[in-house]
Every structure is written in C-alpha cells, then in structure tokens.
C-alpha cells in the first residue's frame, strides 16, 4: 500500500509513516505531487520544517473552522513535536482533505482514498479576506502597534511566499513607473492580499476604504487581464474589486503614490514612535522599527538611503512615510527604485500632508521641509537638551559613526526624541542633576587628592594623639558644625558624591586634623577642606556609601577604628569652635543619627581591616612564591649555559 519512494516526496511519505508511529499513509501520485508542492511552498528548501505561520495560513485557506484546524494540528502530531515536519505536514494535508470531505478528523479517516485538499486561498485570496474573519493561528490580534506591524509583515511574508506558485509571476525588473508593472496582476494581486493583511489589523472601517487601493493592482488588470491568469478565480476577485472601483478616483495608477488610508496608517505609526509629528525619529529607533519588517538589511539600507533625503540620520514625518511606503511596496514584491519617485519626495508629501487637516494643527506649520526641520530642531533642542544624556546607546553608536560628520548633523540626530526615551528622560532629568553635580564634586575631590596624598605622606604619625584631646568637645560642637554644613549643603543642593570620589575625602579629613596640630596654618583652606569633610559628615547621615570612604583612611593611616569618629569630630569641631555656633539644642537628634552612623562605620571599618589583613597575607604568600620561582630560575640558569 505504501508508495515506493519517488524522490524526496516519497521518502517524506515514508517519513510520515515513521512519524505516526508505524501508520502507513498511502499517498497517490497526485497527492504526493500536490503535498510536496505545498510543503515546498510553506517550507523553503534549506529548512527542515515548515514555518508555522505559513502553514497556519495554508490551513486557514482550506476554509475549515478553526477548531477543526486545531484538531488536525494535534492529530498530525505537530503539536507533539512542536514543528511541522514533512510527516506532520503530509498527515495534516490528508486530514484537511478528510475534513473537507466530511470525515471526522481521525487518523483512521485518512487511510481511505481522499480527494486532494482544497485550499481556496491559494487561488483566490480576496475571497479568503472577505470570507474568513481575521484570526491568526497562534498570533494575537489585539496587540499594540509594534506587534501589529510585525503581524502584518508576517502576513505579507506569506503573500510573498505564494508568489513563486504561479509561473507567469515573473520578477519585476522594470521600474515601477512603467506601465508594464501594472500588468503583473498576480503581483499586484499579492499586493492586494498583503494590503489586506495590513487592513485586517485595523478592523473593518479600514477594510472598506482599503479595497479602493487595490484598484492599483486590479485596475491595471484592465490593461492585461489575460496575461497572468492561470485560474479563473483571480478574475472573480478582480470583478469584485472592479465594482468598488467607482470609489477610487485619484490614485488609480501609481503604486508609489501614498493613499489617504496609507498616510493615516503611517502617521499613526510615526506617532507610536514619536508623538511629536514635527520632530524626528532617530536612526536607531527607525532601524529597530523597520527591521521588524524582516526585509534583508541591504534592502532596508537602500530604502533608508532613498527616503532620508537630507541625510541626517533621522526621519521626519514625510521621510518616514516614504520609507514606510517603500517597505510596504517591497514586501509586496515591487522592486525598489534606484531613485525616489516623484510622488514619494518629501516635499511632495509635505504638500500632501497639508491636505488632511484633521486634528493635527501641527501640520499647518509644515511649510517647507527644511524650515520645519529647523523648527523641529530648535524645538527639540530647547525642550529636551537633557535627553541628550539619555539615549546613551544610540548616541554612543552615532558618535562613533559621526566622527567625520559635520556638527550640525550630529546635533540634529541627538536631538531626536524617540518615544521610548521619553519616560527615560523623566528619570534622567532626576538623575542628571545628581550626575552633573556629582561630577564636578568628584573632580574637585580628585584634584586635591594628590596634594592630600603628599601631605599624608609627610605627616603620618600625627593623628593618634589628637582624638583624645578634643573628643569631649566634639560631641556637641561637631553637631553644630554639622548643622551649619547641613544648611550649606542644602543650599548648594549637593548630593552624596559618587563612590570614586570617596578615597580622597578621608585624606582631606586628615588634613584638617593636621591643621589642628599646627594652628598657625591658614584657616580658610582648612575651612574649605573641613567644609568638605563636614559635608562628609552630612553625608554620613545617609548610610549606603559611607563605609567605603573610611576604608582608605584605615588602610592609609592604620588608625584604630574608635579613633576614626573622634577624628571626624575633631575636624568638624575645629571650625565649630571658631565659628561660635550657639545652636546646640537642635543637634541632639543629629547627634544620635551621627552616632549610629559612626557605629556602622566602625563595624564596616573592622570588616575592612580584616579584609585588608587577609589580602596582605595573600600578598606575602604570593611574594614568597615569586621569590621561590626566581631562585629556581637562577639555579637553572647556569645549567642552561653549560
């Protein structure tokens, strides 16, 4: 019963037998031929399994109810194995044939002789479009714009895959402006089908208007209706569309003309990426967006080249519409033109954009592409100067690319305000002041670190005696100082400095301590450093990064931990004494807070001291090893010389 292997299809039949666990699936010659043809359509040669989307499309085209299709998928084993291999595919086709003949979906039913499964969609896509509701096999329908885009692109992929089917579909070589293009009905037909994919995404109202656009293809059928028809059904669809031809008026002959619905769609897409219709979409955002269309990168690159007429690495609304339209056209099988067609020029689109006034008041400001671009740039520059920090990735990449670029073009790309960056700008706005303020602080700290280090080296032994003297005074006085510094800090609005700046600061506390020993030293510079150290005091009240600061001090000075806090108190007490702050009552709460902070710091210091000692030991061991190796080397050397 089993067919002898006749090429790949035969072996596939055998495989199908194996796939179903010993079920012998009889396939007649015609069935084999048909199945292999369908399979090759759904599954490009290099792959071993058919793409789920194309298979789903095919199944839907069989016009079986979705439940049946699900059942078929289960029965044929695709659900089990997770993909549509040849075996599963063939079984599924057989089951579809069975279901169409009225048999239940069972393995047993396909053992009989069955007619070929009928797939209406392959012959007549429009019927499918108008007939079956928009339900995607495994693809969610109510999705945000981005995914909608993806879905539509998937559908158009399938549309493209169906192209190789009918022989008269020759690839378009001539530029689209030539009338000969319009005579390729199957392609424009597929274009219509693909457009239907787009329209189905947007619901019924779109559908009605959309059919007018299919006039582009089918109307050209008037010229050469006979040319590419292999089956009668396309003519049926054409007649359906010819009836609606009345509604189409202006855009009947130019696939490179953007219709109203298309423009609306593009504008919506633009809005989803960039709410301000006057501003740009940056290159990276656009890249991600158009990459979803699954066109090959060289083609996308060429589309970009064509549509970005001012070559600034960003897309204005007309440029975006152009690019989108080119993508859509390409997906529908039109070859990309070498140069931009007239109807897709941004100036043309600008003028066209002015027509639909609607709710977009901004459109009225579109007088010329360049002035509007200028406006947009200024607008962008004024509003989101902080946003320049935010799109780090894009900015960095573009910076690398634009080493050679003139300044104007660089600035414009950075000024684009992609939508997804907007929520980031809020965060960035919050973080930016911190970063900005912290940065100069860190710089100032680091700049003084060298002198601090030097001074540190000069007078290491001085710290220990100091704390015991002034510790008693410090508790009240340093709090006053802290209070003073608190207000100062609040006024200056400084936030905790970032960790990298921490190491120099302890050395600065040391410096004021040295000042104490040498009271004749200048007060102002020490005050400045004490201010910074007192700021550290302020910062002490906020726990997180403090312990790391103390680390350097302990390592450098080898101070005992209890001496640290007195040291700090000393440094702050010195100016406190001199400033004669009368307010001591308010300091009690701060005192407690500071004491807890001090305790925490002490603990952290202890931990770090232990860590330090461990590391020192490791270092010693490594040194020993090194010495051992060196001696070995020395010993070996005379040997080699000999």
């Amino acid at each position, binding site marked *: 019963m089993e067919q002898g292997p006749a090429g790949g299809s035969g072996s596939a039949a055998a495989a199908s037998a194996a796939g179903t666990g010993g079920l012998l699936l009889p396939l007649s010659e015609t069935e084999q031929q048909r199945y292999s043809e369908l399979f090759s359509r759904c599954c490009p040669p290099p792959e071993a399994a058919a793409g789920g989307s194309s298979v789903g499309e095919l199944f839907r085209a069989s016009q079986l109810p979705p439940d049946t299709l699900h059942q078929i998928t289960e029965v044929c084993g695709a659900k089990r194995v997770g993909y549509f291999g040849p075996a599963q595919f063939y079984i599924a086709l057989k089951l579809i044939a069975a279901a169409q003949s009225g048999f239940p979906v069972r393995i047993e039913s396909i053992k009989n002789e069955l007619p070929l499964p009928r797939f209406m969609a392959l012959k007549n896509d429009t019927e499918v479009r108008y007939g079956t509701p928009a339900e995607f096999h495994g693809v969610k329908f109510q999705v945000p714009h981005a995914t909608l885009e993806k879905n539509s692109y998937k559908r158009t992929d399938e549309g493209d895959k169906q192209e190789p089917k009918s022989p008269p579909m020759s690839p378009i070589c001539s530029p689209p402006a030539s009338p000969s293009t319009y005579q390729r009905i199957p392609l424009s037909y597929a274009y219509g089908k693909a457009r239907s994919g787009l329209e189905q995404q947007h619901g019924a109202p779109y559908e009605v208007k959309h059919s007018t656009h299919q006039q582009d293809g089918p109307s050209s059928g008037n010229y050469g209706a006979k040319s590419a028809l292999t089956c009668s059904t396309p003519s049926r669809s054409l007649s359906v569309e010819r009836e609606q031809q009345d509604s189409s008026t202006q855009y009947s002959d130019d696939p490179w003309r953007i219709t109203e619905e298309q423009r609306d769609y593009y504008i919506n897409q633009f809005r989803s990426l960039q709410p301000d219709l006057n501003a740009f979409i940056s*290159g*990276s955002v656009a890249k991600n967006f158009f990459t979803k269309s699954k066109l090959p990168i060289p083609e996308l*690159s060429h589309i970009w080249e064509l549509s970005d007429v001012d070559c600034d*690495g960003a897309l204005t609304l007309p440029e975006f519409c152009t690019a989108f339209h080119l993508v859509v056209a390409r997906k529908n099988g039109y070859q990309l033109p*070498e140069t931009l067609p007239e109807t897709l020029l941004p100036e043309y689109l600008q003028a066209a954009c002015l027509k639909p006034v609607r709710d977009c008041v901004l459109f009225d400001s579109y007088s010329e592409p360049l002035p509007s671009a200028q406006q947009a740039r200024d607008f962008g520059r004024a509003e989101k100067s902080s946003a320049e920090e935010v799109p780090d990735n894009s900015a960095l990449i573009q910076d690398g690319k*634009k*080493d050679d670029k003139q300044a104007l073009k660089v600035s414009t790309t950075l000024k684009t305000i992609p939508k997804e960056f907007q929520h980031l700008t809020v965060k960035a706005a919050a973080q930016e002041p911190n970063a900005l303020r912290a940065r100069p602080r860190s710089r100032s700290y680091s700049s003084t670190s060298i002198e601090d280090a030097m001074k540190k080296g000069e007078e290491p032994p001085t710290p220990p005696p100091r704390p015991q003297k002034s510790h008693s005074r410090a508790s009240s006085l340093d709090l006053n100082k802290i209070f003073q510094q608190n207000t100062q800090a609040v006024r200056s609005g400084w936030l905790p400095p970032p960790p990298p700046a921490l190491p120099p600061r302890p050395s600065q506390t040391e410096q004021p301590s040295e000042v104490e020993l040498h009271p004749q030293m200048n007060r102002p510079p020490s005050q400045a450093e004490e201010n910074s150290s007192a700021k550290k005091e302020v910062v002490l009240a906020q726990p997180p990064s403090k312990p790391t600061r103390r680390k350097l001090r302990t390592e450098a000075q080898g101070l005992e931990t209890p001496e640290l806090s007195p040291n700090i108190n000393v440094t702050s007490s010195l100016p406190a004494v001199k400033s004669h702050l009368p307010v001591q009552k308010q300091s009690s709460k701060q005192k407690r807070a500071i004491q807890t902070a001090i305790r925490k710091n002490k603990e952290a210091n202890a931990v770090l001291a232990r860590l330090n000692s461990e590391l020192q030991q490791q270092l010693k061991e490594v040194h020993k090893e090194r010495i051992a190796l060196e001696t070995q080397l020395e010993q070996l050397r005379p040997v080699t010389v000999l």
Partner: protein
Amino acid sequence: MAVCIAVIAKENYPLYIRSVPTENELKFHYTVHTSLDVVDEKISAMGKALVDQRELYLGLLYPTEDYKVYGYVTNSKVKFVMVVDSSNTALRDNEIRSMFRKLHNSYTDIMCNPFYNPGDRIQSRAFDTMVNSMMMQVC
C-alpha cells in the same frame, strides 16, 4: 579621472575598492595596499600635533611611472586612496581635493544610515553612483 578609488577602514582593511574594469585590478589592489604604509607614515609625521591641526588631505603619496596615488584620511582614521593616471596631467591638486571632499561627504552620508554598521563593506548605491562619476570613462 581616477583609475581606482578605495576606502580603507581604520584597521587597514578595505571597505570599498573600485577600479576601472579593463585594467588588471589586482595591480591596483596591490598599489592601494602599499600606499597604506605611506599614509601611516604621513599620519605619524604629523602625529605630534593635535589631530585637529592635521590636515585631512595628504596629497600625493607616491608617484610611479604609470600613475599617481593620492591619499586622504578622516578624523576616524578612515583612509581614502585614489589612483590617478599619470598621463592625465590636467588634473590639478584642487580637483583632487574636491574629489576627496565628495568622497568624504558620501561616506558620511553612508554613516548616517542606521542600517550600516561601521566596519561593514560599503554597499550603497548612492556611493557607487558617485564613485562611478569620478572614475575614468573607459570606452
């Protein structure tokens, strides 16, 4: 005008190389490759000064009996090398400079394309058109 035009990346591999088709193209590839040494020499000679002060146009790299080789380097160390037929004596320095400027502008336009990754081969049709316009018209 030019017989061969090449765009060399910072790491000294070719991003784009186009020669007049009738000639032995390998010879031009070899010429461009050897000229890279001269380019590096010129860059390092000016290297002491700041990059800003370094001029992008390097001028005549070296002449041979058949042709002359001109060089141009951008701020990102991308090099443009142009091989010009020696018999074409009418070609002045200014013209060479303008040709390099056009090349540079086209190159930056390519860079603006977000689908172009720096370091890829240049496959832009606009760039091809521009280069073709600069190549010698060999019948």
